[in-house]
């Protein structure tokens, strides 16, 4: 019987983690700013909710806090062009998972999420890409917390 291949990786925040081969996502173009990172995995931890961790498996180790954009803006919508969908090799939204990348600076009350450039993963062929929604009004820095919730009111 075949054993599932795993990849042992070193993460900055979670130590060494074994990634089963069938969880590896391929980003052909990398991400803007990270053109040489092609392999990623989404790691879920209970005490990180509502975030997940998009961990790069190529060196040097980098990772991103990601969140379901539909949790941030319930009516979030992305209109992908036909070439974009062709690139994803899917037109079935049920096969796709959408992530928005969060930026949490030292002052976590200033946390933002990038709704302008969502990451879309085709779960069937495990490929992913970050899209720029040129015709949308979404912000690169959408606040995650309302200012009124801040520690100093």
């Amino acid at each position: 019987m075949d054993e599932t291949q795993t990849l042992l990786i070193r993460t900055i925040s979670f130590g060494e983690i074994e990634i089963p081969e069938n969880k590896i996502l391929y980003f052909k173009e990398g991400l803007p700013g990270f053109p040489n990172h092609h392999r990623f995995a989404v790691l879920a931890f209970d005490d990180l909710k509502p975030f997940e961790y998009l961990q790069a498996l190529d060196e040097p180790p980098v990772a991103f806090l990601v969140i379901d954009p539909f949790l941030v803006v319930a009516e979030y919508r992305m209109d992908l062009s036909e070439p974009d969908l062709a690139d994803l090799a899917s037109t079935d939204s049920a096969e796709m998972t959408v992530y928005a990348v969060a930026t949490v600076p030292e002052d976590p009350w200033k946390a933002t999420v990038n709704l302008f450039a969502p990451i879309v993963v085709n779960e069937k062929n495990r490929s992913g890409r970050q899209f720029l929604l040129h015709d949308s009004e979404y912000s690169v820095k959408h606040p995650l917390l309302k200012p009124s919730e801040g520690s100093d009111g």
Partner: protein
Amino acid sequence: MLVFTRKKGESLVIGNEIEVTILNLGSGNVKLGINAPRHISVHRQEVYESIKRENLAASRSQIPAADILKKILG
């Protein structure tokens, strides 16, 4: 940097697959049409740079403390 002079309606070919056409010349701006294979993404430079910058900032994110996580979407 390679520099070309082109008239309205003329094109440049980059590699075997990318064609850039001057569609219109205005005062202070130029309208370009780009034919490229679909795996080549084309973006306005300043928009692409802003996403690069944001991804770099995001990669330096701190993992928020539990009480903050509870406030998010809470």
